[in-house]
C-alpha cells in the first residue's frame, strides 16, 4: 500500500485500510478528470459491486476515475507477473484443488513459465528490451482499458481472459456474473489474499465487479435512440432528478431494450479485432436516461471482450464503444469428435480406456455445455466397423463416467429424453439408446443433420463418414473444436486446409477439448490485448 505515488484526492482510505479499500460515497462533483467527453455525470449511472481488489459498492464513474489515475503497467510487467504467479501458486494448493478440482488447471496456467509462454514474453526481468514486447521497429504496448464480460456459468473463464490481459499491461474491469459459483468465489478470495504480497499497482489497475442487469418496466418508455441512452444529465438535471434517478434511470440500461426498440441506434460494431466501430453520436441534448454500468464501461474501454452466448453478445453489443475501441466476442460455438473406427477397434484396452476417459472429461466436466465439449461423434470407416466401434465406445465411455463417479440427476435425465425423443420425432435420428441416465446415444440419419444445440449432459449424436474429407461438408462457421482419435496430423491439416476458414478453430486430441490456450477461437489473445507502436 505504500509505493503508491499517485494518490487520488477524490478518495479516502478506510480505517484499517490496506491501501486499496476506498470509501464509495465520495461526491461525484469532485471528479472531473475522466468524464468520457460527454459532460456531467449522474450520480446514478449505477453502482457496481466490486469483488476485487476490495469488496464494496462503488459508482462506476468513480471506479473508472480511480483506474485512470493509476500508474501504468507495461507489457509483461514484472509486478503483475509476480502477482499472477502467486495467485497460481495459491490455486494449486492441495486444499483448494480438493474443493475445486477445476482450479488446478487454472493454477497450472498461472505458472511463470506458462505465463511467459502464453504472453510470448522473453524470460527475465527486462520485458521491454527485446522479444515480443519490443523487437526491431515495433514496440508492443498495452491496449489500455479492457472491459471483460465473463460468462455466467463457467467460473474460470474470466481468469484466463483477465490474466492474459493484465499480463499484457492493461487496466481491466471484469464484469463477473452475480450468479457465478463457488469456484469463482474461491478464486476471488485467493486473489484478494495474494494482494497482501503484491505491488500496489495491481490493486490500482484491476477491478472485478458484479452488477445486476436492470430491466426496464415499460419497454416503450425507453425507445429513444441508443445514443441518447448514453447522455448523462447535466448538473442541474441531477439536482432536480437526483431522487428519481436511482429508481427510474437504472431501468433503462443493459437489457431493457429489444432489438426492435434499438432499431435506430446506429450501426453496431462488427466483430473481430480488425473492425472499427462506428462512433457514438451522442451530441444531441436530451433529458438523459442515465446509462448503466455496461454502457459506461463500454464507452470508456479501449477493448471489450465478451464471453458468453449469442444472446449475451448481442445484448452487450447494443452499447456502443468509443470510436477507436474494439470488440472481441466469443459467442456460442459447437464442437464434435471424429474417430477412425478401425483405429478404435485396433487399439489396446488401455488406449481405449484412456480415450474414453479423455472424452468423458471433454464432455461431462461442464455438463457438455462448454462450447468445446463434443456434441456429435463422427465415425470414419465402413458401416460395420463404425457400428461395432460405436457400441464398444459407448460401453467404455459409460465405464469411464462411472469410474469418475459422475452421475446425471433426474431433471437432466428427463431433459435428455426430451432432446433425444425430439430428434427422433424430427426424423433426424434413426435410433436413440440409453445406457442408464449418464449416456444417451442418438444415431443420426445422415452426418449433415448433426445438432448444434445443447441436448443435456451426456447426449451424443453419432454419424458415419466414409472418409475424413467428408467432414468438410458438415462443418459450419459455428463449429469450434474438433477432437480426434486415429488420424495423422497430415490428414487433419488437410481437413483444415479444405475448410479454408469456414469453421473449426481447434483440432486437438480427444481429452484436450477443454484446455485453454492463448489462442482461442482462432484469436491470439495476447496479441489482441496489446498494440504495436512503430518506431523507426
Amino acid at each position: 500500500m505504500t509505493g503508491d505515488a499517485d494518490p487520488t484526492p477524490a478518495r479516502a482510505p478506510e480505517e484499517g485500510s490496506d491501501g486499496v479499500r476506498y470509501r464509495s460515497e465520495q461526491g461525484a462533483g469532485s471528479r472531473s478528470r475522466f468524464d468520457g467527453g460527454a459532460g456531467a455525470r449522474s450520480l446514478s449511472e449505477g453502482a457496481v459491486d466490486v469483488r476485487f481488489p476490495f469488496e464494496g459498492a462503488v459508482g462506476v464513474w468513480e471506479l473508472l476515475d480511480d483506474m485512470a489515475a493509476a500508474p501504468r503497467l507495461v507489457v509483461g510487467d514484472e509486478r503483475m507477473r509476480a502477482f499472477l504467479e502467486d495467485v497460481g501458486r495459491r490455486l494449486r494448493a492441495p486444499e483448494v484443488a480438493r474443493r475445486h478440482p477445476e482450479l488446478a488447471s487454472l493454477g497450472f496456467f498461472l505458472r511463470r513459465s506458462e505465463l511467459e509462454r502464453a504472453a510470448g514474453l522473453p524470460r527475465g526481468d527486462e520485458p521491454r528490451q527485446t522479444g515480443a514486447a519490443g523487437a526491431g521497429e515495433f514496440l508492443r504496448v498495452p491496449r489500455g482499458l479492457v472491459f471483460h464480460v465473463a460468462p455466467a456459468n463457467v467460473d474460470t473463464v474470466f481468469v484466463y481472459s483477465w490474466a492474459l490481459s493484465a499480463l499484457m499491461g492493461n487496466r481491466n474491469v471484469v464484469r463477473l456474473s452475480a450468479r457465478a459459483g463457488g469456484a469463482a468465489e474461491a478464486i476471488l478470495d485467493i486473489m484478494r489474499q495474494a494482494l497482501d504480497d503484491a505491488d500496489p499497482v495491481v490493486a490500482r489497475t484491476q477491478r472485478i465487479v458484479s452488477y445486476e442487469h436492470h430491466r426496464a418496466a415499460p419497454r416503450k418508455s425507453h425507445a429513444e435512440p441508443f445514443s441518447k441512452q448514453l447522455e448523462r444529465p447535466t448538473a442541474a438535471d441531477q439536482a432536480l432528478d437526483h431522487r428519481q434517478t436511482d429508481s427510474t434511470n437504472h431501468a433503462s440500461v443493459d437489457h431493457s431494450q429489444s432489438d426492435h426498440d434499438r432499431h435506430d441506434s446506429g450501426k453496431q460494431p462488427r466483430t473481430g479485432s480488425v473492425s472499427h466501430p462506428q462512433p457514438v453520436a451522442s451530441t444531441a441534448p436530451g433529458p438523459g436516461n442515465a446509462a448503466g454500468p455496461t454502457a459506461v464501461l463500454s464507452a470508456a474501454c479501449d477493448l471489450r471482450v465478451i464471453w458468453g452466448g449469442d444472446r449475451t453478445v448481442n445484448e452487450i453489443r447494443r452499447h456502443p464503444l468509443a470510436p477507436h475501441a474494439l470488440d472481441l466476442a466469443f459467442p456460442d460455438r459447437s464442437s464434435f469428435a471424429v474417430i477412425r473406427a478401425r483405429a478404435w477397434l485396433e487399439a489396446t484396452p488401455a488406449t481405449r480406456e484412456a480415450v474414453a476417459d479423455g472424452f468423458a472429461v471433454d464432455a461431462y466436466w461442464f455438463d457438455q455445455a462448454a462450447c468445446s465439449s463434443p456434441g456429435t461423434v463422427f465415425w470414419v470407416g465402413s458401416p460395420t466397423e463404425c457400428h461395432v466401434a460405436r457400441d464398444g465406445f459407448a460401453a467404455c465411455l459409460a465405464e469411464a463416467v462411472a469410474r469418475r463417479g459422475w452421475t446425471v440427476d433426474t431433471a437432466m435425465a428427463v431433459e435428455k429424453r426430451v432432446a433425444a425423443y425430439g430428434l427422433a420425432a424430427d426424423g433426424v435420428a434413426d435410433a436413440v439408446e440409453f445406457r442408464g441416465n449418464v449416456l444417451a446415444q442418438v444415431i443420426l440419419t445422415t452426418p449433415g443433420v448433426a445438432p448444434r444445440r445443447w441436448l443435456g449432459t451426456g447426449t451424443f449424436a453419432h454419424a458415419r463418414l466414409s472418409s475424413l474429407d467428408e467432414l468438410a461438408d458438415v462443418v459450419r462457421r459455428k463449429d469450434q473444436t474438433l477432437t480426434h482419435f486415429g488420424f495423422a496430423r497430415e490428414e487433419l491439416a488437410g481437413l483444415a486446409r479444405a475448410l479454408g476458414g469456414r469453421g473449426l478453430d481447434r483440432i486437438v486430441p480427444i481429452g484436450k477439448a477443454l484446455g485453454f490456450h492463448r489462442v482461442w477461437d482462432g484469436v491470439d489473445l495476447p496479441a489482441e490485448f496489446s498494440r504495436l507502436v512503430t518506431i523507426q
Partner: protein
Amino acid sequence: MSVFTLTADDREWALVPRLAELTERHRHACPPYGRILAAIGSHGPYERVADLPWLPVRMFKTHELRSVPKEEVFRVLTSSGTTGQRPSRVHLDRHAAAAQPRMLAATLREVLGERRLPMLIVDTRSVVRAATLSARGAGVLGMMNLGRDHTFVLDDGGEVDAAAVQAFLARHGGRPFLIFGFTYMVWLHLRELGLDLSRGVLIHSGGWKKLAERAVDAAEFRGRLASECGLTRIHDFYGMVEQIGTIFLEGPEGDGLYCPDFADVVIRDPETWEEAPPGVPGLIEVVSTLPTSYPGHVLLTEDLGVIHGVDDGIWPGKRFSVLGRLPRAEARGCSDTMGAPTGGASDAIMGDSWGGSMVARTPPQAPPQTPPQAPPQASPQASPQANGRDAAADRPMPPTSPRTSERGDATDGTAAA
C-alpha cells in the same frame, strides 16, 4: 355411474388393451410419435400398463403432436408457459373435445352428486372475462359448467365480497353447494369470511407451493377450514392440460389422490425407469384413455410423487400424492444454454398479483427436500402433500371445459370464445 370402481388388477385388465390400441393408433396416425417409438424400439404386445412407452410431457411444448388431420382439429389447448418457454399445444378433435368435460363431470359426480349444485367461486369474475383467457380463467370457466347460480367470492378489485357470499348462503346455504377455487386463494380468502360453509363441497387445485412457503400443509389446510368455516368436504385434484378431462381426485379423508377408472398412475424410479413400489417416490407417469386425438395417453410428467397404497382406501385402485416438481435441468457451460443468461435467475410469474404463480410454470430453484416420511395411514388428516413445494403449484389449472370455439381460433388457455 361411478368412475371409481376398479381395483388395481381389474383396472390393469381394462386399461391395457385400450391403451395399447391407442398406442398403435397414434403410432400410425401421428408420424413424429411413430418415429419416436421406432427410434426407441418400442413395439407390442404390451402386457402391463407399465410396459407401455411413455412420452415426456414436455414433448407437447417442443413438438406438434396430433393424430388427427388438421381439418379435424376442433380445438387447440395451450398451457401457460414459463417465460421463454413455449406452451404446450394439445389438439382435440370433436370427439375428444366432447369427451373431456363429460368425463370430468363423471369424476366429480362422485363427490358432488348427480345434480348441478349452486356454486361459489373463490376468484373474481374478471378472471373469466379477460380478453385473453388465462389458464386460471380457463380452469374456472371449465369448472363453472358443473355448477349453477355462480357467485364470485371476490369483487373485481380482488376484495372479498362478503355481501355477495352472504346472499348466496341465504339462498343456498342450507343444502349442499359447490365451492371451487385455487388452493392458495381458498386459503387466503375463504377463512376471512367467517361464514358457515358447512354444507359446502370444496374442490380445489393449483398446488401447494405458495402455501408451503407459509408452512401450510394439507392437514393444516383441512383442519383450519374445518374449524373456521365448518368446511369438511374438501377435495384437492391433480391434472394437466396434456391430459385434459382426466383428474386425479383427493378422497374424502384426504388420504391421497385417487384415479378414475379410465386412468391410472405409474411411479417410476428415476434411475432405472422401472415401476417403483408403493412408498417409494419417483416420477409420476399418468395414463388415460381420453387422449384419442393426440398421443397423450401415456405421459411422463416432471412431477415427483409416491403411491401410498393400493386398493386400501375409500375408493379402489392406487392412491398417491404429488411431492413436488423436478427442477429444470441446469448446465454449466460457456453459452446461454439455459434460461435467460442475463436476466436473473427466476422467471417472471404471470401478471396476476396473486394467482399468477399458480398457473405459471415457474421452475423451482432446488429439488424437493425430502419425501414424506410418515405413511398417511398414520393419521387420516396427515397430508401426503405436506412436504416442500408441490408440483401442482407450477401447473396450470387444467382447463376443464373450455368455452367452445370454432376450429382454429383457439389460442390461449383453452379457447377464446
